């Protein structure tokens, strides 16, 4: 069964990356210097004000972590790593390491290239020592893209604000509210520390001049460290001054197994670097602008093309066919990540036409127009662009979940197909 499921997911995984390369996507909130920043003050702490006011229950949070299956992608959740069939990138790891059992070696080589950029998720080990619970609460409730070099990002789960606070309380258990004065530190010296220690080799800090990469990374180079490195502009929201200094001095003490190297900084150097990270004047974050809808295609669009370019390539990873995957149709079909089974199979024509099970327990068509006339299936694809622009829709969850929004031309294709009567 493991083999059958693995094969299925690998088959479904074939071509995800082509559509998910962030470099091809419009710039997102954390995607570096390509967008023209508008000069403004540093990001406000206002978004987490509501989160700071909430008190979380770690006990309930532990149950929610289990319910939402955080261990499908993350280590360090307090749960064992999810079993192979359920893991976010278990198949990808096997494909990359050549362990994946499939006779067709040409296919395997092709997959290897496709899944290269989807094989990591940050470990939550030691989150309590590092993160501010209020930031984590706000992030879980309304995830933002923190890691500019990573294709996948934290998905928008079905959490209430209280759920988010409870999960944050569980993950940050043992968190100490420490105060540390950086009055004697120098941001200018801190910038020099960050430049000379090669922080720019992995990290971006959008809103300030780029750090030089030491050693310079090759164009397009991807390693786990580069992919997992967060945009340092978010440091001031995520970590306290004391946590930043401790992290810079001995990262592994706070997060065993971290890829962040020990830079051998003195206490003063760490404080200087922390001061820069926490107080440097930041240009406004590059704003993601959702692309404008394109006119419907006049040419004929058939299901085969829609399946090849969109549904089979991306959507069927989570909305799969349980019959060929040991009974598991993925979180968007048989349930997972805290989502109820929606019974939506986007891997075949009759599956798409069969709709999904709504919160009311009834079947609904995915082509049903919403208030603005957009079919629900199409609205979900646009909603992902809205989420990336920081405007999540309360009524529609953006799809693909936790992945970059689809190119507008792909959405145009799906919309045109629906408008043409969704021919088979």
């Amino acid at each position, binding site marked *: 069964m493991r083999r059958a499921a693995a094969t299925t997911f690998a088959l479904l995984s074939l071509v995800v990356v082509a559509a998910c390369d962030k470099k091809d996507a419009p710039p997102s909130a954390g995607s570096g210097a390509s967008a023209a920043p508008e000069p403004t003050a540093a990001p406000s702490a206002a978004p987490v004000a509501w989160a700071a006011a909430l008190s979380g229950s770690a006990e309930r949070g532990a149950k929610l972590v289990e319910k939402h299956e955080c261990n499908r992608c993350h280590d360090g959740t307090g749960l064992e790593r999810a079993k192979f069939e359920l893991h976010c990138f278990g198949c990808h790891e096997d494909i990359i390491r050549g362990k994946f059992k499939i006779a067709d070696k040409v296919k395997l080589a092709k997959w290897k290239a496709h899944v290269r950029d989807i094989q990591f998720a940050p470990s939550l080990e030691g989150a309590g020592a590092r993160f501010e619970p209020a930031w984590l609460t706000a992030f879980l409730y309304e995830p933002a893209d923190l890691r500019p070099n990573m294709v996948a990002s934290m998905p928008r789960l079905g959490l209430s604000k209280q759920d988010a606070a409870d999960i944050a309380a569980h993950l940050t258990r043992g968190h100490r509210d420490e105060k540390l004065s950086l009055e004697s530190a120098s941001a200018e010296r801190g910038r020099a520390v960050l430049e000379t220690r090669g922080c720019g080799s992995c990290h971006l800090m959008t809103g300030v001049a780029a750090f030089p990469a030491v050693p310079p990374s090759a164009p397009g180079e991807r390693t786990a460290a580069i992919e997992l490195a967060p945009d340092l502009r978010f440091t001031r929201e995520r970590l306290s001054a004391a946590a930043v200094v401790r992290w810079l001095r001995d990262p592994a003490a706070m997060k065993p197994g971290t890829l962040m190297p020990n830079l051998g900084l003195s206490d003063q150097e760490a404080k200087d670097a922390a001061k820069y990270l926490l107080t440097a004047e930041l240009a406004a974050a590059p704003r993601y602008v959702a692309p404008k809808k394109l006119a419907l295609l006049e040419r004929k669009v058939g299901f085969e093309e829609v399946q090849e370019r969109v549904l089979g390539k991306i959507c069927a990873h989570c909305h799969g066919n349980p019959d*060929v995957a040991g009974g598991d149709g993925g979180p968007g079909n048989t349930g997972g990540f805290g989502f109820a089974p929606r019974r939506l199979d986007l891997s075949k024509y009759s599956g798409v036409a069969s709709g999904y099970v709504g919160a009311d327990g009834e*079947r609904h*068509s995915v082509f049903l127009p919403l208030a603005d006339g957009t079919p629900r299936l199409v609205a979900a694809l646009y909603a992902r662009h809205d989420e990336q622009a920081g405007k999540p829709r309360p009524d529609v969850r953006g799809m693909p979940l936790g992945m970059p929004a689809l190119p507008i031309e792909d959405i145009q294709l799906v919309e045109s197909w629906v408008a*043409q009567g969704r021919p088979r």
Partner: protein
Amino acid sequence: MTKRSVMSIVFAGLGALMVATTAPAEAEACGGAWFPEVEVDFRPMAIAMAEKQLDQGKVAQAAATVIRTMPHVGQLNAKRSKIVERGQRVLAVAVARTNGKLELGQEVPAYARAHWAGKTEKDRQANLTFAVNALRKVNEIKKDDPAAQTELAEALARVDAHKSEARDMLEKLAKKDLIATPEGYAVLAELRAKAGDESGKKLALKRCEAMAPGATVCQTTARG
């Protein structure tokens, strides 16, 4: 030494000689390694192919693939095996879409073609009964699945005693825009026409033609 024990020694010696002379050649052919022969279950691939053929409208081919893979598919218990359930589903839909008369080619052995051709009215009725029963089982397993319901309605519509049940199912699905195939709309058009609902028939045919433009699926059989 008895004659029998001498014979035993001779046979044992011959056996040893055979092993000694044949094993190395086989081992070389396998790259110097020895491994036991493994029987591969090809049914999942074959049934997946049949499902694809059915989706492409190659009804007889799909049925032939199933029967060649599982010659006694009609007698197997779908509730015990997923692969049998999938095979029976393909065959049942194919039977319904050919009104109980499957035109199987020579690639299916004569013994396995059996009654599927529906040459007599008795065979045809038996085939349709199989289709209805098999698709009912699929619906029991896959609860609340519009694709399974659409297919069951297709089969029910081919049996006089079940036509009203078929129409009820399809009307319910149509109300929610959940008829999963153009064939389902074609059958609904036919049932509406028989009930004298001419405008309803036209609407269903319009949907069928939008879902299967240019295909014969909306034109075949008597659609009223």
